[in-house]
């Protein structure tokens, strides 16, 4: 086993711990879904395994892995985008309008 991979693994884990701090509850599911799509990186492994010569059995196991990983990646990113569509910044616009008269009132007073 390549020890430098272990170094990379440990450092990336620390980074992962630091990456996520306060997350609003509405984002829990999209964040889970998005990071789940990233764990579909195993699609790279499936592609590489299929590129190696070996037993036919290994090739078909690799093919099954490729299909499943592709579902994970494509479906995962798409569905996360669908969830996040609902977060379109249309809420701030009416708020800004509503707060404008208040601000001008404040200036008058």
């Amino acid at each position, binding site marked *: 086993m390549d020890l430098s991979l272990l170094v990379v693994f440990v450092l990336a884990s*620390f980074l992962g711990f630091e990456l996520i701090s306060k997350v609003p509850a509405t984002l829990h599911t999209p964040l889970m879904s998005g*990071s789940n799509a990233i764990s579909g990186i*195993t699609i790279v492994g499936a592609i590489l395994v299929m590129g*190696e010569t070996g037993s036919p059995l290994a090739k078909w196991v690799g093919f099954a892995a490729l299909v499943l990983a592709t579902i994970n990646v494509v479906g995962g990113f798409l569905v996360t985008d669908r969830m996040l569509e609902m977060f379109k910044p249309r809420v701030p616009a009416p708020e800004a309008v509503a707060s404008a008269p208040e601000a001008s009132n404040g200036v008058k007073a």
Partner: protein
Amino acid sequence: MTVLTTLAYLVASCLFIVGLKRLGSPRTARAGNRLASGGMLIAVVAALLENQILNPVELVAGLLVGGIIGVWLARKTEMTSMPELVAAFNGFGGAASALVAGAEMLRGSGTQMREIAASGETVSFVPDMGAGDLFIVALSVLIGLVTLSGSFVAYGKLRGRSLGSFPGIRLVSLLIAVGVIASIVLLIGTAGESSRMDEAVLFLGGLSILALALGVVLVLPIGGADMPVVVALLNASSGLAAAATGFVLGNVALVVSGALVGASGLILTRIMCEAMNRSLGNVLLGGFGADAAAA
């Protein structure tokens, strides 16, 4: 691995990091998801280049079939069923990691096989995996398949199916865990002995069945309302499965991305527990209290 593919994996990893960071805030979340998906596209293209396109038909077929199913599931699923869908995708990812590790072991040694293939002889198995390599394969298969079956039990529970637990399920889990350890030890025992490849495949098969059973009995006793936390935890474990597969293949992209998802998934799990004013242990072992209350 060429310089170019390694650099592509580095760019992809950076996009995943920035993407994950942005996914944590409402204003930047959508852009973050798109960054991460761009990173994935770069990683896939790099892998295709590294693959040297030995099986073009199978590759295109696999990507097409998976892509169509993925788009179809993502489009047709109702907004209210999102947690289930995430659980299902998660299970697929875990299964894929386990299968890649299994395929790598079945394939036997990379360099030796290539030499034999180049010399034109036909040999089915030439294993020269050391004990360490076999251990990582076992770990990858174990985590990946526990993620698969656990995710689908969570899927069923989120759909409102009453999947009954049974008394003594914790004891059964413990027995299966012992079986898992035993099969890993047996598998590692075959290291370096080419003549025992059939045995090694048998032990890996046994481990696979036990791992699937373990995922079921671990998630079954947990209450339906706690399923989102369980899915978050299984998401972290699917990341770890990908990282383990990265060690099997010696691929840095899988190791980095898997570690990121594993670690950030654990933090998200903790945050979700805190939001419910529970500890993770309380959620996972909560079944005990429920059993006692029912009895």
